Structure formats: C-alpha cells, structure tokens
C-alpha cells in the first residue's frame, strides 16, 4: 500500500518536473544557441533533479531550483567547450588592427554609419522586448556569433558572470576578454543593422 503511494508520489514529481521542461529549454537555448545541446542539458537537469528530489525542500520555487541546476550544467558545458581548441577566439586577430578596417578609416573615423537601422534602440528596453520580431532578431544575432565569442558573450552578458569568472571558465586573459567582448558587441550591432537597416 505504502509502496503504491510512493510510486504515485514519484510519478507526480516526474510530471511536475516535466511541466518545467519548456521553460528550461528556452533558458538553455538562449545560452547555447543550439537546440540539440539545449535538449541534452534539459534532460541532464531533470535527471539530476529527479535524483535529488528528496533534498528539494521548497524554500525556493521549483523553477528557481531547476534553473540553479541548469546553470551549473551550462557552465560545465561551456568549460568543456572552451577546452576544445578548434573554435577558441583569438584576441590577437582582433579588430583593433585588422577586422575594424572595414568600419574605420586609418585615422579611426567611421567609414560607415554605425547607427543607421538601429533607431528602435532609442526606445526603452521594456518597450523593445514587447515586440516579438525584435526579440527574435536579437536572439538570432546572438546565436550567430562565432562559437568562441558566443560563449564569452553568454557568460558575461546573459549569465552575468564576473570578468574573472569568465576568464577562469574560458581560459582567456582579462586583456583578451575586453577585446573579445568589444568584438562580440560590435558583431551583434552589425548583425542587427543588417536585419533592421534594410528598407
């Protein structure tokens, strides 16, 4: 009888965890930019949560507790990816000398207008986020960052990690981090210009 009751409770817990799957998936997708990775992370998170469900005391909401677990999984994933030498960003290749030449003249003046097409950014952030096409465009451009820049941008700007923590996770130096974040922000700006700046 008691076993039957426990089984029922477990099934109820599993259903409760599954109710949070979409929310966790959106959170992971925003940070990984890859559906398959996000799905894997959600699965890992829910399995971990299930194995520790008895330790969940309800002090925080279940969604907060699950996001806490998922954040650890995401950090572990980014740490693991950062050890992959294939797509690590290289600050020495940065635009302060090379890539920016398209955008700046030799004397450091803009060759192109960096503001055209971005008039919507004169509105408040809350107003901007009310418009689904703008949200989709921003997420699209964040996803489109090169993998190395994407990880750094996610950790610093979306996960709000401190610079020293980002350096520790990704293995870049503080000097390189500033250069790479500058590059990521400008890439994002250019991507949005390309999307919004066309009549």
């Amino acid at each position, binding site marked *: 009888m008691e076993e039957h009751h426990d089984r029922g409770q*477990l099934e109820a817990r*599993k259903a409760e*965890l*599954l109710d949070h799957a*979409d*929310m966790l*998936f*959106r*959170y992971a997708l*925003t940070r990984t930019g890859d*559906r398959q990775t996000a799905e894997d992370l*959600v*699965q890992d998170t*829910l399995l971990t949560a*299930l*194995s520790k469900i008895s330790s969940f005391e309800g002090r925080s909401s279940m*969604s907060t507790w699950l*996001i806490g677990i998922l954040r650890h999984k995401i950090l572990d994933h980014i740490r693991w990816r950062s050890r992959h030498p294939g797509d690590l960003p290289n600050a020495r290749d940065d635009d*302060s000398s090379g890539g*920016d030449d398209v955008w*700046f*003249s030799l*004397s*450091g*003046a*803009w060759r*192109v*207008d960096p*503001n055209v097409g*971005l008039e919507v*950014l*004169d509105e408040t*952030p809350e107003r901007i*986020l009310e418009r689904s*096409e703008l*949200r*989709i465009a*921003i*997420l*699209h451009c*964040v*996803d489109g960052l090169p993998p190395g820049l994407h990880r750094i941008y996610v950790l610093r*700007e*979306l*996960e709000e990690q401190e*610079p020293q923590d980002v350096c520790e996770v990704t293995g870049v130096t503080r000097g390189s*981090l*500033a250069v790479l*974040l*500058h590059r990521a*922000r*400008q890439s*994002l*700006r*250019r991507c*949005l210009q*390309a*999307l919004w*700046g*066309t009549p």
Partner: protein
Amino acid sequence: MRGTPPDDRSSWRPKRPGLVYRLMMLVMAPLNLLLGLSCRAFVRLVSDAFERPLTRGERFRRAAHRAMCDVCRVHERRIGTLREVSLLLARSTDAAAATGLSKEARARLERTLEEADVE
C-alpha cells in the same frame, strides 16, 4: 532558429556616415588620432567601461569625444540599450521569449524520465 527566422539580408551594405560627420572628420580625425580621441578608440572605451573602471585619462578622452561627435554619442547610447535588452531577454524564460521543446524532444524526455528510477 526560433519563431520566424529573420530574412536573409546578405545583400545589405552599410551606408556612409552623413556629410556633416565626414566634413568634421576631414578636419578633426588626424588630430583625434594623435590625441587618442578617435571614434575607434571611443567605441573601445565604451565597451571597456562595462568591464572595468576607466582611468581618469580615459574618462576625459571619452567625455571629450562624446562632446564633439554626434555619431558616437548615439552609438554609445544604443550599445548601452542593446546590452540592457540582452540582459532582460536572458532573464526572461516566459513563453514569448522563444519556442519550447519540439514534440519529439518532449516525447524523448518523457521516456527518459519514465525509465529513470530513484533510490
């Protein structure tokens, strides 16, 4: 990747800055470069200011450039807004922010949880 993907705008080409800016830079740019007050240096300082406190000299150079360059002043404001929007978007996990799991992924997840046993 999420919702309706934005159109491919690969044909987009950036526009040149306005005539006033170009005329001003014709005169000022060499001097700006010499003094470390170029638009390129300013944009880098704007980004660095998110990461660390700027030195007094850097703050002065940033303020001096901001005072004379309309294009960079607007750019700085919009980069700041873009950063805030990204932060708010990242904190948001509501249904409007992005799509959910696909049917297949949800089914896989349900199977995995069903098969999982807890001690």
